[in-house]
Structures are given as C-alpha cells and as structure tokens.
C-alpha cells in the first residue's frame, strides 16, 4: 500500500549470515528480527534452519493447523459431568475414608456424594454424560475424553496458570504465545493468538492468563472485547479525523519513514516499521469484519443460542471463534466463566454444586456444542484441534458435613479433545471407582500440552526459548505425547 512489496522481497533475498539463537536474542540490537519474521512467516525465511526451534516452520507435518480451546474457569466437577461413577451412587452419604492428605482448598471433606445429575450413555460410542450437558452429549462420537487428567495445584490461579502456561507461577508464556512463537500466523491481518474473555468477567489473574511472559511481546494473546464496538483497544481512527484526512496523514508518515529507511540502509527494523503500519491499516478493517456476526445466517445464530438470555454473550464468543479460525487465527481461546461473584460466575461450586453447575451449564453447553458441530459441518474439524478444559475437578465428598457443595480436586478430572488428529468417540484413561485418583493412564498437564503441540506439528522438547539460564519449554522438563488419543 505504502511501500512496494519489492522492498520486503529484497529483504528476504538479502542473505545475511547469522547465528539463529543469537539472532533471535539480539533482535534488540536494532534489527527487529522477530517482528520481521513474524510478519513474513509465510515466506519461510528461516526454513531449514535447525539450530533452534523454528518460529516459522513446524518440526513435522502437522495434523492440525489451528486450535480452539475452551477454558471453563472455577473447576468443572468431572463427577457430575463426564466421569460416571456407579460406585459413588452406592456409597452416597457414606463416610469418606481418607485417601491420604486432604486435597481440598477449604479443609475437611464431609460425606461421599453421588452425582447430583443422572447419567446415561450417548451416541454410538456409548459415552456416559450426565443430564447437565444435553448438547455436548450429542457430540460424544466426535470427542476423545481424557478421564485421567492430573493438575499440580488445588488452587484456582496456579492451576489455571498451569493449564494455560504449563507452570503454576506468574509470568510464564501461555500456550497460545508458544504457538504464535512456534508457528506464526496464517493471516497477518489478524493476531495469531486471540482470547475471547467471558463477558461476565475475567478469570482470576486476568491478562496474566494470556501473557507472552518472557517471549517477545508480539506473541501475547490479544483479548478481543467482543461485546464492544471496538474489539481491540485503539483500533478505530479517532473521531474527528475523516477517512481522507487519515489517508493523507498515513501518506505523510509513510513518506517520512520511507525516507528515513532509505537514508539509513541496513536496518531491517526500519522496513518492518513501514510494513507494520500497512498491516495496522488492514487490521482496522479486518478485525471488525471478522467479528461482525450479522454476516451469519439466522439459523447459525440460533444454533449457537445467540438470542438466548442465558448465554450472556458467551455464545457470541463461540461463533466469533469460528469466524476467527476460518480467517487463519492460529489459536483462539474462549474463556467460560470469570472469577468469584455472588452468585458465582464460574464453576466453583463450593456451596452447592447443583445450583452452581446448572447456571454455568446453561451458558456453556449449547454454544460450545454448536461450535463443535459447526466446525464439523464446515469440514474444519479435519484440521482444527478442539480442546475443552478446566483447571481441576471437584472432590467426591461434600465440602464439609451436610453441604451440597464440592471442594477443589486436582488429582483426577476430565478434559476432552476433538478434531484434527484425534481418535473420535473414545475414552482415554480413567479415575478410580470414586473419581479420587487417576487409575489408568494418568495424563499430566505437560503430557496434555506435549500432545497438543505434537498435533500442531511441534516437538515440545524442541520448541524452546532461552531465558535467564534455561532453554524454557511449555512442558518444562516433562511431558510425553499421549499416543493413545492420536488417530
């Protein structure tokens, strides 16, 4: 638009020798190399470079090109949703025999409590799903449940951080940032990593959940305010500046920047700045277009439950996610639930698991199921990885005697995967007879992440970034790809 494509081309063709890791590190030396690489990712500038993780090309042929993750904040009870425990029906109201240290957050558990919902089998696969989630129950034949998830922490934020960044601490790059760093984007007019926060509120820790940590800032998740007319801050040209005036301003600026780059040859960052303004101008139209749900048919809107009061905007986010995935966004994270609230606005059913989960499921079930079905009917599930997660489950005993609530439970819980490269209609791993410990095929968060990276064509041991003495990984020093879930 303002700079001829030739100048970018010439940069690519200009062969500058460099040490790959050093090059990434010394982006600060005036080269802006990472940014350039990010913007030029489709040009495969670094293809064939084996020295370090490639920010450009996958390690091997990926099954999935993009990923959508639903994160249900607060801790969804596996025992009342997907992990059917007949034994717990038998033991309902019985004294809870201690299984070692109490894992709850608030102290001593009460008596055992069976699922507060009836379960039945669904689909050809016969997967058990409770009456809590009738719409997701229709999808079981496309889904691979993992009933043996294991989290490190029984505390919301560290556990959520672990699910989202691999570490229980503040300040580690989120999975989306790693994917942006590892794979770049398929559409430079949209961010590579988009987060769609629940309109009811942010999860605890807020934007820490999608930070790029020590990775370069361009890999940070961009939180779209989908309920606002300006989904990204400062996207719109300020009021009072007409389109034609803005065009003239941009031309003036481009002339200045082009002259500067010409007079100061040799620094790629100066060309990258020119290009960044072109992309910014394109984003000003591509983001509103991507988030404009009025382009969707009435039947699609109804399928997601867009007009139902209970969905409070969450349905919009699910539909938005599909549009963003269609347009090449690498990683869309949809947050279901915020933090705290009275009544709570997440799945943290301490006081009364039924009351709490009833309200949350009403928001989550239909739109998420619709997204899964929609991706399938459009053929997108072939190369889109669909991931449904929560930070931990809830305990088989009540929280305190006589309470209808359940406390946090990190030692066994359920998540599910679907889509690209995933074996559909299976159940992987299991928890013990009361859903307390994992029984078969324990899956740790690093295992889960290793598998996701694998499906996207990345070797979790090779996707590294040097920071303060350590070649950091999403999976720390752990993680094994779960072969049993791969198609």
């Amino acid at each position, binding site marked *: 638009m303002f700079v001829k494509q030739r100048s970018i081309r010439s940069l690519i063709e200009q062969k500058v020798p460099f040490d790959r890791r050093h090059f990434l590190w010394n982006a600060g030396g005036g080269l802006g190399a990472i940014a350039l690489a990010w913007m030029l990712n489709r040009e495969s500038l670094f293809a064939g470079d084996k020295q370090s993780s490639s920010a450009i090309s996958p390690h091997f042929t990926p099954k999935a090109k993009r990923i959508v993750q639903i994160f249900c904040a607060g801790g969804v009870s596996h025992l009342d949703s997907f992990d059917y425990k007949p034994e717990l029906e038998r033991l309902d109201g019985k004294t809870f025999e201690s299984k070692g240290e109490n894992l709850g957050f608030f102290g001593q558990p009460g008596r055992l409590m069976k699922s507060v919902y009836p379960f039945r089998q669904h689909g050809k696969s016969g997967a058990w799903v409770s009456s809590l989630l009738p719409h997701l129950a229709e999808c079981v034949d496309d889904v691979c449940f993992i009933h043996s998830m294991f989290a490190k922490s029984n505390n919301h934020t560290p556990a959520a951080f672990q699910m989202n960044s691999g570490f229980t601490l503040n300040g580690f790059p989120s999975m989306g940032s790693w994917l942006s760093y590892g794979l770049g984007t398929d559409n430079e007019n949209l961010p590579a990593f988009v987060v769609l926060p629940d309109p009811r509120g942010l999860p605890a820790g807020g934007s820490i959940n999608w930070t790029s940590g020590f990775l370069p800032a361009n890999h940070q998740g961009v939180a779209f305010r989908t309920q606002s007319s300006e989904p990204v801050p400062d996207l719109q040209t300020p009021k009072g500046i007409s389109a034609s005036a803005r065009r003239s301003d941009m031309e003036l600026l481009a002339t200045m*920047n082009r002259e500067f780059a010409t007079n100061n040859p040799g620094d790629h960052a100066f060309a990258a700045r020119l290009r960044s303004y072109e992309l910014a101008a394109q984003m000003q139209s591509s983001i509103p277009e991507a988030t404009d749900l009025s382009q969707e048919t009435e039947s699609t809107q109804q399928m997601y439950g867009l007009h139902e009061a209970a969905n409070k905007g969450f349905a919009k986010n699910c539909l938005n996610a599909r549009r963003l995935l269609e347009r090449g966004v690498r990683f869309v994270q949809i947050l279901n639930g915020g933090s705290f609230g009275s009544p709570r606005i997440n799945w943290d059913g301490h006081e009364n698991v039924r009351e709490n989960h009833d309200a949350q499921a009403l928001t989550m079930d239909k739109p998420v199921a619709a997204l899964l079905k929609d991706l399938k009917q459009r053929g997108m599930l072939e190369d889109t990885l669909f991931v449904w997660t929560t930070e931990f489950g809830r305990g088989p005993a009540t929280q305190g005697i006589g309470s209808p609530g359940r406390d946090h439970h990190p030692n066994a819980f359920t998540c599910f995967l679907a889509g690209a490269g995933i074996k559909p209609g299976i159940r992987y791993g299991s928890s013990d007879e009361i859903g307390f410990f994992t029984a078969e095929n324990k899956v740790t968060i690093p295992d889960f992440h290793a598998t996701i990276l694998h499906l996207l064509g990345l070797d979790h041991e090779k996707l590294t970034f040097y920071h303060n003495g350590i070649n950091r990984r999403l999976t720390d020093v752990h993680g094994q790809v779960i072969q049993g879930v791969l198609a």
Partner: protein
Amino acid sequence: MALMYNSTLILPDCLVLDFGTPLAMSDNVFPMRNWPAIASILLFSSFATCHAARGDVDFAKEILPIFQKHCYACHGPNKQESGYRLDNRDIAQKGGDNGDIAIRPKDAKNSPLFRYVNGDEEGMLMPPKDSGKPSLSNNELQLLRTWIDDGAIWPDEFAGHQRQRSSHWSLQRLVKPTPPADHPNPLDAFIQRELKTKGIHLSAEADRRTLIRRLSFDLIGLPPSPSEVDAFVNDHSDHAYSKLVDRLLASPHYGERWARHWLDIARYTESQGFEYDRLRENAWHYRDYVIKSFNEDKPYNQFMKEQIAGDVMEPMTTDGIVATSLLVCGPWDQAGNSQKNQTQRSITREDELEDLIGVVGQSFLGLTINCARCHSHKFDPIPHEDYYGIKSVFEGVKHGERTIATKAEIDARESLQKSLQNEIDLATRTLNNIESEGAKQAIAKRPVGSVAPGPTPYAKWTFNENEASIFPGELNGGALIKKTDSSRGSLHLPKQGAYFQSKPITKDIREKTLETWVALANLDQSGGAAISIESSNGQVFDAIVFGEQKPKEWISGSENFSRTKAFGASEETASPSTLIHIAIVYSSDNTITFFRNGEPQGNPYQSASPIPTFVAGEARILLGRRHTGGGKPWLVGEIEQASLYDRALTHDEVAQSYRAHGASVSKEEIIANLSPEQSAAYTRALTELQRAKKSLSELAKLPVSYVGVRVQPSTTKRLIRGDVNSPDEEVTPSGLSAIVDLDPNFGLSADAPEKDRRLKFAEWLASDLNPLPARVMVNRIWHLHFGQGLVGTPNDFGVSGERPSHPELLDWLAVKFIENGWSMKALHRLIVHSATYRRSSTFLPSAAAIDADNRLLWRFAPRRLEAEAIRDAILSASGQLNTKMGGPGFRPFTTTEFNATFYTPVDRAEPEFQRRTVYRINVNSGKDPLLDSFDCPDPSVKTPKRGVTTTPLQALELMNNAFIQRQSTHLSERAIQSANGDLENAIDFVYEFALSRKPNHEERQRALAAANERGLPRVCWALFNSTEFVYVR
C-alpha cells in the same frame, strides 16, 4: 537390630561371610533373642579372619585404592558421570546429580555408594557390567562396608580439591588485563584490537546533534531541548562533551532513567499477581530508593548489601529498610498461602523462596542458582546443597508490609502514644466512675421493680424512633425498619440480599463483644450473620453466623474460618420470630466464648489465629450479612438491636445485658443526676479525654512499605528433588561454594539469628574477592549503553549463558569499577567518553559482511526506545511533562474489588498523569495498551534485557491512542506559541522539539502543506509515529 550393630562391640560384619550369608540378610534372619549366642560366635571367629575391625580400615591404604581401581574411570579426576566423583570428599559424600547423599556415615546399608557396588539396587550395579571394570571382590565390599559403618572417616589430606576452581570463565579471579598500548583510551584499545584483527573498518564519529540526542536518551531518558542542542553544537571548547556528560549525570532525571532499568531486573511489581492481584499501595518507596541511589552514585557494593540486609545493618536507616524490598517486590500468591492444604501451602512458600533466590542470584551474581532447587545445577557448579544453604539465608524473609521508621522513631512514637493512652484511660475511668455513680442515683429515683441497666456498649444500633447510633448506616437490598409499636422498631430483613451497613467505626477494635437481639425467620437458613464487624473490603471479619458449617448452629464466623471452631452448643430451637439474645466475646488472649440468652453455651475455645485489629476509619458493622464478597451471606429475619463493645464482657455483664434487654440509663439522665462537684469533675475529665484523643488521632502514623516481614525461621533442610515432603539433612546458611576465593561457610549454625544470615551473605556477596558482581554490573551498564552486552545474557554468566565478546575488556572494566569505589557514574563516564560509544550508526556493508550483529562494535547500532522512554519523550516534546519526583505513583487505571482486584486502564490528562512513566503504578493484570505494545515486560518477570518487536498493534497504538492525539495538539500549540504564530517557523520548532533537528527544505514544504490542509497537530502526530522519533541513533 541395626542400631545394635552400630553401638555394640559386635562389629566385624565381614564375619558373616563365614556363614555364607550376606549381611543384609542376617539382620532379618536372626531373631533378637538369639543375639547373644550369635554374637559370641562372631566374636570368637572375628579375630581369626577379619583384618577390618573398627577403626582398623585405613582409608589411604585400603579404601582409596578401591575407588581408584574400580571407580575413577567414570567418577574421578577426568570424568564425572552424573556429576559424581570419588576423588573429592565433599562430592563423594554428598552425591551427584540425582541429589541423594551417597555415603551415610555409620549406615552402609543405606548408603547408595555401598548399595550400588553391592548390587542392592536393581539395574544400578557399579561398576556396570559393560564398563569393562571388575566388580568389587567380597573382601573389598566388606572393607568398604566396615569403613562406612565406622563413620566413613576420610582424612583431610585426601579430601581432594573439594572446592576446586571451576574452569568456567566467569568464576576466575578478577585480574586487570593490560590494554593494548596503541590507543590512549584502554576501552577503545580493546575494541579496536578485535576489529583490526578481523579487518573491519569503523564508522566515523557521530555528529554533535546525534551525540547529544543519544547521550540524553541514554543517561536521562529524555530528548534534549532545542536550546540544549544549540548550546552543545556551538560550544567549541575542549570540554564541551565532558560538560554535557557531567550535566546529564548530575540531572535528577538520570536516576529516574536508570532506576527503571534496575526495576526490570528486580521484577518490581506493585500488585500481587496470582489470583487476587491486590494493589500494593506502599511499594513505591523502593522505586524511590533506587532512583535516589543512582542519583547519589551510591557505591554498587553498598547498593547490593543494602538490598540484601539493609534492614539489619547498623546504623539502621529508612533507606536501608526500604532497600530490602528487593527480596519481596515480586509476585506473591496470597490464596496459596492461606489455603488449608499443608503440602500445597508449603509448595507455595518454596516457590516464593525460589523467586527470591532467583532474583538475588541473577541480579547480583549472574547465576541461576534457582535452577538448583530440585537437583544440582545442570550446567553450572552449583550443588543442590548450595541452593539450600542460600535458602537458609533467606528463609526468614516473608512477604508483607511493615513500618520503615527507624527504631528510634518507633520508640519515640510509642512512648508518646503510651502516655496519651494513659491519659485517656485515666479520664475514661474517671468518667465511668462518675457515670456509674450518676446511674445509681438515677436508678434510685426510678420506680421500684425496674430493671438494672446493662453494660454500656461502644456502639449500639436500635431502630426506635428518636434513637440514633453514633455510627449510622444504610439499609440495602430491601432491608427496612418495621415499627413494632408507636415508638419502637426493628430491622426487618425480609429476603436474601437485605442488610444494614454502618459507617466506618472510629476506634481500633480488637478485644470485643458482639451482641444482638435477633429473631430468625426460619431455622433452615444457612450462612447469614446477625452482626458482623469487617474490614473495608470484607477480607477480614468476625461475625455471629447461623447454620453455616452445621445446620442450626451458631458459630463465630471469620474469613476462611481462620478463627472459627464449633462451640459444640446445642442446635438452635427458637421458634421463628422469637427474639433471642446472642453474644460472642472475643478476649485479648484470643479466647472466643458464646452466650445465648445470657448464659454460656458449648465450649469457649482459643482461636487458631489471633483476633485481628479492626482499624478505625475502615472497619464497619454489617447486620444481616456475613461479610462483603462472601457466598450466601444473608440472614433472613429481624434484628431488634445490636451492639458492639470495645472490650470482652464478663459472664455477669452478658447476663446483666440480657436481663436489661438493652435497657440502659441515658447519658442525659446520668448527667441530670450528678452533684455540682461530680458535674465539674465530669466536664474536666471529658475535656481531658477529648484533648488526649485528639492528640492521639493526630499522632502521625508510622510510614509503612512493602519491604516484607522477618521471622526467625526453623532450620532449613535440603529437600530431595525439591519435594516439600522429602526433607533430608539440615543445612547451615552459606554462600556459593563455586566462588573459591571466599569461604562459603559463614560459621553460622542452622538456627542462627535471621539477621546474621543476611548480614554474612551481604558481606560475602559484596566482597572485592567475589569475581561476579562487578563483572555482572559493568556488563549491564555496557548493555544499556550499547543495546548489547559484552556478555549477551546479562542474568546468566553460567555455562549456558553467552561467552563474553571481549573477555579482557570486561575484566578490565570490572577491576576499574572496583578501583573507582564501585562508582556507577564513573563507569558511565568511562564508557560514554570512548570513541567506541561516540561512533556514528552508519551501516557499513563491508563491516556487516564480517560481523553482521555488530558484536565487535564497528558502529553504534540504532536502538528503539523503550516504551517508557517513548511516552516520556512525547510528553517532553509536547511540553507537558510533569517533573515531580517521588512519592506514590499515578494510577492509569481504575480498580474494581470483587474478592480480587481488577484493573481497567484509563486515559487521563491531569498533570499527575503526565509524570514520568517510572512513576506509573505498574500492576500485573492491568496492562496499558500503549506501553504493553512497546514491549513493556510483565512486571513479575525478571527482565535483564527487553524484547524489541515491531507489530501492527504497536502501530495502532501510536496511530489512534488518545494520548498521542492530545500530545500532538500540545506540541502544535507549543510550537505556534514559540514561533509567534508563524506556521513555517512553527514547523521548524516541531521538528526541533521532536527530532532535535530542523527539517530540510523538502520536509518543511511537505509539512507546511499538510499543516495548511489538516492542521499542525497532524504533522506532530506523524512525527510521534515516525521511525526517527522512536529510534535513537
């Protein structure tokens, strides 16, 4: 049995060989009762066959040869498989990378060394079968076993170089290299030698405009004013450049600029992070301390010591106390620290300490000691034990606020406070005495049969006509006052959500009594409170709560049940709408007692955590609600009255209050019944009381800051694999053993006083013999001047960090730094006066072909300004910069309290918001879109080197952010004023303010056309967006 082995005479284990039975089995095979008989057999035969009786094994002659023959090939001087070596006593005993102690004296059976060579561990037989080395013979095994069981005595002369100097470059002693002689400036001499060797041509010296702009941004983070530029360009004296450098280094803006760099390294954050992310209102003192330290050119060794132990160094100063904020100014997991699960709580604490050790190790030593929490460092010579030795140094440091006043200041205030309190107590006693006399006189005049009044509460809430509480409040959520008869009323709470909230109370309350007359609408309800006293956000509360833990039972509710325990009283049976009297008494010794209808019920208990102080001006009373923010806190029913006493009532007083049913004699009635003498004394005491109270309330509060609190810790134990449930041996506070010129052993015991640990560590750290701190700091300063360090990984001088591009130069600078008394300003002077620093940024293809990254510094590489510098430069150019220094920061966000703190960025134009960006309150979860897009790091991440990205989001920020539009207008107005309204001149000014130069002819014409068409602000906008503006060359 094993114990007997070690403590009796029956020691020649080797004798079991005579029975053909491995010893390990013999422990189990022979029942205890047979022991004496067997022993005698053993003794009998021992002298005949065993040459290895107790103390008889000669390490040098008998054990060392075994190691040499069987083990040295893989665990000796030349090779250390798994980090384990048997030529070094320390490592031989402490074990290798797997973290297990290898030799446990007097316990061969449980010593991995013995177990491995004896084949006791499956798959771990040493030497391995395929190694080509022979297994130990039975005799050798017995020798080894006996030696260990005898105490594994390993004489000093064979201890090996237990602290052998690592060959790693950064751990070598600092020696000042001789610079090449061909250049007057040693710094340039080192640089140019390398360039010459590579045959690289240099760029010329930069012009003066470029130099002053470069220097200004580098040293003070702001652009030079046009007049400063002119003055420098036209100063033809020899010392023009030196004068400029001196002026900039003397500017208070210098400290603001360089403090920001240090705050990145210190991972300085002004909120907690994690779940609650609460704002730290009082963290800013540390930021000011850092600014002040740079401005004062505080010697760096002093700067280091203060940040480790400034609070315990003599003489105690406020600066010293504040300095130690470094230890705790990172993230903190409040929820993790307060949860019930012991293991998880311990992990949270260990994570905290890892963060602390990480910041100390990386910032000062350039070593990632934190990597040795679970095992010995993978790359660097940092054994697992060292991590725990250092952890023991900091074990007593915890998060939190405390006063930063010195002891003398605290004492002075305390004594004043005490004397005022005495005066208040005296006056109060006098008043009480007179009042009770007056009350007696009043009651004596009442008709016979009326009730004796109850104790006088500190505050009381009734809902009768013409009665007001001293702390009135608001009815919320459908609460209403219902008339019960013509003048009496009660608080009616008809449904969930209805409650009363008082204004803040005006006295600190700790010891107290909560009391209420309440009628419950039903007995099935759960979790509501009749009366609650809570902190302003509801985080801390004590309340009379119904049915929360168990149905129908009253408890004393508190946050996370931290002071709650069942009273064990019987269930409530009062039929709906029956008024009952409930009181809970909180004594100063933390006893909590429950009364129903005047009588104690169940068992009083000692609270698990102390009764908190509810702070005057913040705490308030809720009726009908347990606490703000809690789930299901509502009580449904009626409250006739509620009282708060500022003391623990006795049983008699509670009973009295119950009988009186709230009846008390009014003040007016009392006063009316006083004699003239009493009345005069009453007035005097009242005046005295008011005066003393006023003085007390005016007594300045001691300043507090987030410097952390200190506790005397229990002894530190090494945690195997870092697992909190696998403690091993006790460790003592120590430094790093890899620094061989210093003794890492501080001579402190495992239970040494907390302050001694940090004092010793600070001395050890800042010793001139420690080769790391000077190397690390000169590299940081170099890095910040040139955009890249001599070592490219400023926080990692270990094996996985980069090696120095100019090792001799680095050492020369480090020694010089120490010689100059660790002066940072002297180091800046040295660097910026070099020809290397003053070189132009011109790109030379021939040089780039050899050294594309400019590692050898053939030019001054252009550098993108950091986010803060961009914002500050814009404010400076537009003339809007508010140069107010220090104090609480500005808040570019609003906060929402919803159990956690949520931050919403706001854009404000008041002067307070136009301060330098270093004064921005920098929180974890509230990001500023403009600064964030320009690579402002997560405050909780230790950031020795900022990323530099170029992104469309960044462009959008500069294009559309309201701040940019506003400053464009200001710059335009400023220029037009300077140019007396002449647009062409104004354009020159705009360029000079923004870019420190005048436009050329073409630029001027272009800008003029744009300004004429769309206004000068649009030209200013373009300049703020321009590459030339955001890059320093």
